[in-house]
């Protein structure tokens, strides 16, 4: 794939990410007649949640479930909308002038938009237990990607560990696909049931209530569950062999070929942070999230964020937040077209419905400190540079005060993942060690390229585009 001839030099709207938020946003702005480009890294639309919705080899829709099928409607609406789509295209840069750096098929371009809607969704929270870098240990998100796109389930003896809705959904999907799970180690802190109970009324009236309970019952019938898990250690010489666990005073071990970890998702903030958008620490969801107004406008004029990248809300709310951002965009760029798209009030009401029950889930699945901040000195935090928790603590002792100073001491966050896999752990570990809040400690100062770009791609940017972005020095 490379850039099509039909690609314009500038757009009214560029939407980044083809998950539910991006699909809904791009469809809405295009329906209003705005020249819209939807850019996505994957070859097929759907994002993570509806990954491979149009191409999945799993013909039996009961395996992935009815919610997954909802992605079809979003894709169909988008396809009729007239928006341009660039698939298999990486966004590596975005700046406050709303110039988007794209690479596709070995070439790069800089394209400017009046509005940019970031819909880059969520990523899995790091789960740094001893041994988490051993071959055989992977994330549930990665496992589900294989299931959706290739119909693959893990072979050999499998256990899941962690917490959160995705864990139970994936477990059910594995069982429906004929797989076997040796055990599930539930790390939900027991105290969370009490703090979450306050939010139970909202949850009971949400769709999650029946669906969630049904899933958990379905899994519990077939799999041994260990609850209240307080310590996990993956052991093995060159690959995973054994998982050692503690649950309060109970301990045990189990031989495994595959261990899949998951403790919830957090907003994927790299692109937004690299653009210079203000973020704040969310003390409930335990992550940084962008500071946004009700429509999704960020601290930078003309750049909006929708979907889980704006704060975790799930797929249905992501689509509504995508529409809200689109409506605001249309209201600013082509107000006479507002009549052609859903009204702001309707979308707002639907969004409120989809957010019901979220507080309960946030409190119930708030991961325990022992699984966010590695207690063992030898646990690796930065996988790219192989830096352990003990090395980070030692650097703090000789003067590293925050994640950016730490780079100079240990090169944490300076490898190919550009901090995606360690930033939250580093921030929380430093905050804990220094007795400060994560907000005070801050995050890595992120920069483009947020995804690696080859020298050849960079050198391929056409010369004449310099004019698009003449630099005013000063």
């Amino acid at each position, binding site marked *: 794939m490379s850039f099509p001839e039909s690609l314009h030099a500038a757009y009214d709207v560029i939407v980044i990410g083809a998950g539910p938020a991006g699909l809904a946003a791009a469809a809405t702005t295009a329906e209003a007649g705005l020249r819209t480009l939807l850019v996505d890294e994957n070859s097929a639309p759907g994002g993570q949640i509806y990954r491979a919705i149009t191409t999945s080899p799993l013909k039996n829709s009961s395996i992935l479930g009815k919610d997954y099928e909802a992605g079809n409607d979003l894709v169909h609406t988008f396809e009729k909308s007239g928006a341009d789509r660039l698939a298999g295209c990486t966004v590596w*840069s975005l*700046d*406050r*002038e709303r*110039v988007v*750096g794209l690479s596709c098929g070995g070439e790069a371009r*800089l394209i400017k938009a009046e509005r940019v809607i970031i819909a880059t969704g969520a990523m899995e929270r790091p789960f740094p237990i001893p041994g988490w870098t051993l071959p055989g240990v992977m994330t549930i998100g990665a496992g589900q990607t294989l299931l959706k796109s290739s119909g693959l389930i893990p072979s050999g003896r499998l256990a899941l560990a962690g917490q959160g809705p995705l864990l139970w959904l994936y477990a059910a999907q594995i069982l429906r696909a004929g797989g076997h799970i040796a055990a599930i180690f539930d790390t939900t802190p027991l105290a969370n049931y009490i703090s979450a109970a306050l939010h139970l009324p909202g949850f009971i009236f949400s769709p999650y209530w029946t669906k969630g309970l049904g899933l958990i019952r379905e899994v519990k019938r077939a799999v041994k569950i260990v609850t209240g898990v307080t310590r996990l250690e993956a052991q093995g010489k060159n690959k995973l062999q054994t998982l050692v666990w503690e649950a309060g005073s109970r301990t045990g071990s189990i031989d495994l070929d595959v261990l899949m970890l998951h403790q919830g998702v957090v907003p994927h903030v790299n692109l937004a942070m690299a653009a*210079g958008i203000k973020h704040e620490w969310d003390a409930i969801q335990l992550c940084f999230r962008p500071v946004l107004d009700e429509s999704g406008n960020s601290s930078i004029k003309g750049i909006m964020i929708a979907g889980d990248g704006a704060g975790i809300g799930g797929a249905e709310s992501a689509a509504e937040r995508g529409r809200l951002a689109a409506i605001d965009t249309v209201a600013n760029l082509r107000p006479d077209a507002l009549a052609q798209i859903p009204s702001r009030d309707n979308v707002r009401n639907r969004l409120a419905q989809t957010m019901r029950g979220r507080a309960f889930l946030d409190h119930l699945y708030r991961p325990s400190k022992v699984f966010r901040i590695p207690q063992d000195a030898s646990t690796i935090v930065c996988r790219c540079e192989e830096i352990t928790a003990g090395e980070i603590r030692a650097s703090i002792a000789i*003067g590293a*005060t925050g994640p950016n*100073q730490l*780079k*100079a*001491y240990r090169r944490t966050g*300076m*490898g*190919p993942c*550009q901090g995606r896999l360690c930033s939250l752990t580093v921030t929380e570990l430093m905050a804990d060690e220094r007795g400060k809040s994560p907000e005070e400690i801050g995050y890595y*100062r992120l*920069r*483009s*390229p947020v995804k*690696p*770009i*080859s*020298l*050849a791609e*960079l*050198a391929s*940017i056409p010369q004449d*585009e*310099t004019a*698009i*972005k003449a*630099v*005013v*020095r*000063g």
Partner: protein
Amino acid sequence: MQTADVIIVGGGIHGCSTALHLTLRGLKPILIEKDYAGRHASGVNAGGVRQLMRHIAEIPLSIRSMDIWEKIQDLVEDDCGFDSHGQVLVAEDESELAPMRDRVAELNLRGFNHEELIDAEELRRLVPAVAESCPGGVVSRRDGAANPAQTTTAFRRMAERRGARIIEGVRVDTIKRDGGHWYVTAGSEVYSAPVLVNAAGAWGGKLAAILGEPVPLEVVAPMLMITSRVPTFIKPVVILRGRKLSFKQFENGTVMIGGGYLGRAYPDTNETDLDWTQLKNNARTVWDLFPIMREATIVRAWAGIEAKMPDDIPVLGPSRKHDGLFHQFGFSLHGFQLGPGTGDIMAELIATGNTNISLEAFRPDRFETADIGDKHEH
């Protein structure tokens, strides 16, 4: 109120080095830094430790600094990541080589021997991967590179250990002079000393203007890129003159690509924007000169906030307006190597009233006929 012998504003390599050298002369400095030591240009520059291709007026400073660099461990108890594999200026063609020949001859006449003209064969020996078409260049063999953040932090730490007070995260609000003393308000505290050093880097122009001695300083954001790891193929730092490039491979295999292309600086908010239309030119130069790099991947890029003077040399030495005021800023994208030596010279100047290195070219009033003002700051 807290009193000291000297107040230094700015915790870059220059402020920290001056602080350390003052303590070595038995003086008590207080250093005030609005962010943290090495937060800006001093901590994020390319780390070049270069005597090569310096302005003639800077050469004595640079040589004095080099002597310190070679014993940096003794001074700050940290190797600062310094290596000395030389720096090589590559001529892309014969028309670039001719002026290099003239310059080396001129330096030799003036008694400077650190720059050495090399032919194509020696160039290929030092820089095996360079394009076949390059006819030669200039090498400065004692030069090299260091880790800038590690270095600045090491100076800061040693200055503090020797008795300097380092105050970070506090911005200077007001400065007054009364009865031979400076009174600096920063945060909720007033600091007083007979001597004030302006080592505020990109913010040095603003400070100089407040002190009634404006200079035409431009605040700029030079950009750098780092590639993924590639097999080791080059030891020295390579620079170009015609097209802008500086090029350095680290021990871990990553390659830093710079050359002074500018992004946008926002000094009031500590922010910078990268300008990829400029970095693209940087990438093209590498593509042309180092075919081996064509498959490499850019994994990081950044910019630092730095001061640039119209003549590309610093404002350095005593104020022409106030007793007890010294300037040490405006190093124009190449001040990192000068930090250790310049701190030594400033301390000498403050402690003894004199130094045998001529600072005439760096006088703050040298721009006076020009249209002066801090016009480039946002």
